[in-house]
């Protein structure tokens, strides 16, 4: 183990925060679906990648600024998410079966992506890639900064909506007891459609952020599952702020480990931390 320079340590922490923000952004929609709709929606990862590819394609074909694709893709995916929720409802898919169904659907979407864009790597080349701010000796790359701002902004917005709006309170009531909520005049099916649409829209936003920072390949879809699941479980199912905080904890713990010790220890440290925190806070797993 070597003691890093302060600059290296701070830059590494920043790097972990940025990556953790992306974990949190991807995990936000996944955790809401899991906690409030009782669905383990693996298709969420496929939506993220499909959105990333569409963002890439729009930039390639129409030279559309990726930031503008944030105006197109989330509404589109809102509809897609609603359609999937309608189908899940129509066929009365149980929580456990949702895992199997959405896994299958994810594999289908991966094949579709591979069919359309091939298995080869695709990189979104934008002027944002070269943009960065300096904060003393520290560098703040614009794509990662955008991801962080979107992740924090959306997590806070969802948290506020869940806490202070009628729809949010109704969704939480529905998650507690759907039958009682319906008896009070709420429309669980309608609310589930809206929530599923919102979660898919969040996936679309995460996809744009992914395309801004990472090279795309269809097979990468499943590479994100483990760490995002960890962030969601650590942050609490149905929580708006939890996945972001947990994502940042995981990202920073990995980054600091890489800065002070061997980078190959990073997953060991972060997942040991995950296990320890889950053991200390078992109630969050309910």
């Amino acid at each position, binding site marked *: 183990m070597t003691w*890093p*320079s302060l*600059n*290296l340590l701070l*830059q*590494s922490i*920043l*790097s*972990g925060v*940025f*990556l953790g923000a992306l974990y949190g952004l991807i995990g936000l929609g996944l955790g809401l679906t899991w906690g409030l709709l009782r669905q383990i929606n693996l298709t969420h990862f496929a939506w993220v990648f499909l959105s990333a590819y569409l963002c890439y394609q729009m930039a390639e074909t129409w030279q559309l600024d990726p930031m503008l694709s944030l105006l197109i893709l989330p509404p589109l995916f809102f509809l897609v998410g609603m359609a999937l929720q309608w189908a899940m409802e129509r066929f009365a898919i149980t929580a456990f079966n949702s895992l199997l169904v959405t896994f299958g659907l994810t594999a289908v979407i*991966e*094949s579709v992506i*591979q069919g359309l*864009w*091939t*298995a*080869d*790597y*695709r*990189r979104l*080349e934008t002027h944002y890639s*070269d943009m*960065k701010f300096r904060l003393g000796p520290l*560098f703040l*790359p614009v794509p*990662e900064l955008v991801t962080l701002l979107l992740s924090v902004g959306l997590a806070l917005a969802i948290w506020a909506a869940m806490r202070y709006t009628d729809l949010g309170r109704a969704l939480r009531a529905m998650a507690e007891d759907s039958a009682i909520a319906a008896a009070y005049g709420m429309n669980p099916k309608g609310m589930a459609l809206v929530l599923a649409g919102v979660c898919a829209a969040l996936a679309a936003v995460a996809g744009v952020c992914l395309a801004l920072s*990472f*090279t795309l*390949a*269809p*097979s*990468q879809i499943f*590479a994100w599952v483990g*760490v995002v699941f960890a962030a969601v479980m650590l942050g609490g199912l149905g929580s708006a702020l939890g996945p972001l905080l947990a994502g940042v904890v995981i*990202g920073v713990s*990995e*980054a*600091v480990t*890489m*800065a002070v010790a*061997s*980078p*190959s220890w*990073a*997953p060991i440290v972060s997942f040991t931390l995950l296990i320890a925190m889950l053991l200390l806070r078992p109630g969050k797993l309910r």
Partner: protein
Amino acid sequence: MTLDRRSLVAAAGALGVSTLFGHRAGAQPSGTPIKVGGTLALTGPLASPSLIHKITGELYVDSLNKRGGLLGRPVEWVLKDDQSKPDVARTLYEQLVTADKVDLLIGPYGTGAILSAMGVAQRYGKVLVHHTFGIPGLAKYDQQFHGWAIGPEPEKTVPAVVFDALAASPKPPKTIAIVTSKFPSVHFVSLGAREVAKQRGLTEVLFLEWDFGNRDFGPIAGRIKDADPDLIFAGTLGLEGNMLLDALKKIDYKPKHHFYHVPAPGPMVKAPEADGALSITIFEEHPPFTNNPTAAEFVAAYRERATRANLPDTSVETQAAASFSAWQILEAGVKGANSLDDKAIATWLRKNEVDTIQGRMRFNEKGNFGADYSRVKQVQNGKWVTVWPVAYAAPGATLQVR
């Protein structure tokens, strides 16, 4: 495009008629097709390079049939998808031998899948010619043959050729950072590089390892910047090289000399920050490689087919060249032995040399490996060009240093 004019005209002319790869059209093959069975990772994490092998194989089999097939019979390639999983590859090779009853085997891409296929080939006494096997020391079966001429000890020869190239440059490195993925076929070369660097008097200022699949290269880039080596020897596989370069760019660090063992060639050459990046190659699409008419014709045919398949990178380099060579070796073995008998083919291959687009290959050293055609290439002005040894350098290209 770095094909010389004569080769290109010859290749284009040949394409206009048919794809024969330097041979004359033969008599129409007849009879029961000879089945050549193999798998490729058509899906999963290794799917990207497998597309290269698929296109190459299809072109080669087309050409072979136009040239009269093998032993006068047409050739059929029975290709299955191993999903980038060695265990699936094992099952599929078993199926190919026992259920599909293929006559010959051609190996998959990637060390893990090839090892699986090798086990099956050994069990049934089949010859296995494979594409890109990275760890020759693990090739224990005497009827397996490689299509990638990296010699029997790449852990010594790959670093050595890179250090040779840099030693001849105007600014030879004195310090080195060796950073590596723990992916087996690149990791062992990086460990070898530590030894070779020590022998060459290079001071190691940093050694780092990470697990394959790592997403955050920021801290690794930060440690490289702190160490500020003259040379970064990066044992990276696929996109890892790009991710490291990207992370270095984000903290405004420009490496002096930087080498990437197995980069994703397309994405790396397109990254502006990759200018000056070094890697290893056996073939690039420029003279002297394309002075070979077969190679020039293949380059043109591959580009046309890859463009139609919507591949973002349509150039021929190590993967396609190794794949093409594997088919050349299989063809030479069958024709040389004048038989489909696996023992006869293996015996012929061990005793003879085969002309491939990489060069003349032999199979008479440890693990049937032989010649080492590792050469050093560099990204220069958005193109990969060979720079070392000088005899293989692209016309006018020399190693560029910062």
